[in-house]
């Protein structure tokens, strides 16, 4: 019950945060140099053409009026019309968020799993050969730029070994996947489309691996450090001297106190992962959220920038909320 109340309270706090984000993005994107109308019309357009285009997107109105219109649209779920493509931002968003979210969630989950298993394993063999190798491998993964790592994985996994499909698209069009959420793997599960599932999974494998390798190092180091701390704690020593079985020791006395500090870091890593998708989508020729947001920013496509920043902010708030709840569940000393 206390947990539910905490979640409700935090969700209420989201409203002022998002409102602030809306205001700041709205003003900032207009203050920045660059004119979206000139960009789409090209060098040959006359002033009259520009004025007409401006009127069409409502950019000729005073700023406060534009802001009010924007707010009104937001209230009804309308994110406006993309200046660049002329289509509704909302529908474009719906198409692109799913795949990127799927990529990030899968990668971070995979990274967390690897980090916990290897981190604890590594801590139990502290300063031995296995421990050193794991830490060096994690460091190497962390220091490789994601675009380069992506290219290497394509070269190895597609060109040389041929185990994975070509880096174009997210699912084989022959599988006739009906899009529901935009996240192909999830759609394949929801529609029970076996061939589409296999195809989506093989397309996802390399990008997920790339992103996971890039973000796993900080998680692994953190897990290893806290596992070491637990292993050296008096509480663990007490459990050991009382002769508890290794399995009980691992599950009851090592794992949970080790994981206590992980959620906060995992939330931060999640944020980094969202940023990394821009390059990874580029390398694997995905039409994802990252690519879309980047292009919107380059062309000063006001509605696109506003919508993507708002969405990222919302994502951050929710991820941190989840992290806090998980932390509270793991650590009984945390009062929420």
């Amino acid at each position, binding site marked *: 019950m206390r947990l539910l109340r905490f979640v409700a309270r935090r969700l209420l706090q989201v409203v002022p945060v998002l409102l602030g984000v809306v205001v700041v993005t709205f003003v900032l994107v207009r203050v920045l140099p660059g004119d979206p109308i000139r960009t789409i019309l090209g060098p040959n357009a006359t002033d009259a053409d520009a004025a007409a285009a401006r009127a069409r997107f409502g950019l000729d109105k005073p700023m406060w009026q534009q802001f009010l219109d924007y707010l009104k649209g937001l209230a009804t779920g309308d994110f406006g019309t993309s200046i660049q493509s002329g289509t509704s931002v909302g529908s474009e968003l719906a198409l692109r968020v799913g795949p990127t979210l799927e990529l990030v969630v899968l990668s971070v989950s995979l990274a967390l799993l690897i980090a916990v298993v290897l981190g604890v394993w590594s801590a139990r063999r502290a300063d031995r050969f296995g421990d050193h190798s794991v830490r060096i491998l994690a460091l190497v993964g962390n220091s490789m730029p994601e675009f380069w790592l992506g290219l290497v994985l394509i070269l190895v996994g597609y060109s040389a070994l041929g185990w994975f499909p070509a880096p174009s698209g997210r699912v084989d069009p022959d599988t006739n996947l009906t899009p529901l959420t935009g996240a192909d793997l999830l759609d394949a599960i929801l529609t029970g489309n076996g061939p589409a599932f296999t195809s989506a999974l093989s397309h996802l494998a390399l990008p997920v691996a790339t992103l996971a390798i890039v973000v796993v190092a900080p998680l692994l180091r953190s897990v290893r450090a806290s596992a070491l701390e637990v292993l050296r704690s*008096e*509480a663990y020593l007490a*459990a050991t*001297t*009382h*002769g*508890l079985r290794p399995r*009980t020791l691992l599950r009851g006395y090592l794992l949970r106190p080790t994981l206590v500090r992980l959620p906060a870091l995992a939330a931060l890593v999640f944020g980094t992962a969202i940023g990394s998708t821009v390059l990874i989508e580029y390398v694997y020729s995905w039409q994802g959220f990252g690519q879309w947001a980047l292009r919107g920013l380059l062309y000063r496509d006001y509605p696109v920038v506003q919508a993507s920043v708002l969405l990222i902010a919302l994502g951050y708030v929710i991820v941190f909320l989840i992290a806090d709840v998980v932390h509270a569940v793991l650590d009984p*000393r945390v009062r929420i």
Partner: protein
Amino acid sequence: MTHLLSIEDLSVLIRRPGRDVAALSGVDLHVDAGEVVGLVGESGGGKSMVARAIVALLPGGARTRGAVRFEGADVLAMDEAALATHRGHGAALCFQNPRGALSPTRTVGRQLTDRLTTHQRMDKAAARETARQLFEAVGIRNPARRLDAYPHELSGGMAQRVMISLATGCAPGLLIADEPTTGLDVTLTREILRQFRHAADTDGRGVLLISHDLASIASVCDRVVVLYAGTVVESGPVAKVLREPAHPYTRALLASVPDVSGRPARAIGGAMPLLPSPPAACPFAPRCAHATERCTAQRPPLTGDGWAYACFHPQTGGGAAAPGAPPPPPRGGAGRGGVGGVGADALPRPGGAPACPPPPPGAAPAAPVTAPPPQRTAAGRVVMEIEDAHVVYGSRFGSGGHHALRGVSLEIRAGETVGVVGESGCGKSTLARLMLGLTAPSSGTVRLDGIDLHAQRGRKLRRLRTRARLVFQDPVGSLSPRRTVADAIGEPLRALGVPAAERAERVAQVLARMNLDPAMLRRHPHELSGGQAQRVGIARALVGDPDLIVFDEPTSALDVTVQAQILDVIAELAGDASRGSVFISHDLATVRGFCDRVVVLYLGRIVEQGPVEEVFGNPRHPYTRALLSSAPSLDGGYTGARVELAKDLEEADAATGCPLAARCPFATDECRAEPQHLTPYGAAEAACWRVPQIPALIREGAHTRA
């Protein structure tokens, strides 16, 4: 006959790069089933190393020689599988710091059932029921509910009980307790120690009780082994070792504990050495007043059967704690006699120094002979005045909260030392915070030097605060780890805006008064020993020449022998006529050492106050009697009629009536209904209307019990 545990000529050498430490050198000891053996000595003496050797958990780089035989099998030679059974089921360890030794993210019930299912092969339901019974057996009330508590939700005493239940839940043959009562107050200490005696008597376990405090464990042990610098210096039955110790170190150790009967503590000079290799001579010789050339050339063997000691010059006669000694002479500040005891002449010579003929048996131990200090002028100016102060710590949300002080009035004059005693949770620390202006009273006033402390703001408040200083319980923890000793001591002067040159001068002065080497000024706290750090803490309190110094349990985190040294320093300071001192402690004996007046707190109220001799020699309130009764003592201690309180330690509903009524054996309906106020009885005041009847009631009780 084989012993349950027998340690044979055990040596542990810890090899670290650049430095070897001979943690144990040829230790012999044994424990039988159903027996409680005490292992005593200062920290660094190797007590914990013995405990770790018994469960084969020695630190990295440790080399061992000799054997630790448990039921005949050598623990040090066991393989992993044998060790897994031996740990817990063979020997189970109770850790010193129960809060730290309980896993923070698992309920205590789960932690206990883990042990039960592992070692007693129970299924889950049976384990939970047994866990409940075990909790009940160690005196945890509401055991079924407590099973689901997490360690951070338990008080220190409760956590210690849980720790004991965890160790006994392994059904061990041998129970090892590492300083199980450190930091607990007297009534809890007694309760906890009783648990160990119980484990030996009813369950037939062997118990190894490790402690630095001889007095507290004396009552439950059958035999005692004294360790010094990794060697056994004396071992034997309690009656012998503690009553007529032969080894000078045992005598010194005993003498350094102040006693509730009024015998002051005497410090041993010097510190225990950390030996790089097993000693070739008597390790105690450098600190020993009886040492001869032979002691520094040869290591005395442990000789004797049953009662053995390793000394060429064994002492005879009653120790510091001679039984049957008449009560010490009326105290005219004899406690301050300890001052002369620092340095080379520090060794007590109970039973007579070699030069003097031994006193007749049963004679009073040599009380330090000092001229009584000049009679204190009772009319010193009032430095601290508390009037009907209440403190309520509100809970974080909504109503309720903890009523820490309920109407305390107190006056402290310059030149006076007031002791504040009571169990943990009685409001002692809140009173300290109140006097320093760290906590504001919910109602009532606190005046420092006649100025209302809590009506001041900003700069005025800061200046006023420098007039009252605190000496903390944790000496190292209360110093900033990144600042040098000079910075730490000079800090109050900086707050006052004293220029650097004068600051350095005053810091040097106060350092000299603390007998600290000026070279110490450039050190950092982690380079100091506990005793040195506490001296720095006292110097810091003293440097601004405050009107009031509050000592909040300044010695409870220190080794006994260091405690005695620090008590000497404090006793000397308390003699200054320009300043009032408050000494807060749950250890009655230290308070009796040098306080003029004593205040007994219970649940935020003063239940008795008066001159120290009056309150301790002739206690009136049932609570004071109970506190004195449970104080550990080797000298016979409190000689008055003993009073036992009911076990109930939960905060009673003290809204109406006497707060003690729920625990008091003499409580009547009137006690439960009527609040009690301090009423003068002789030189003291007590808040109990039945004071005149209590002696008769005690006699009756004794009759009915007999």
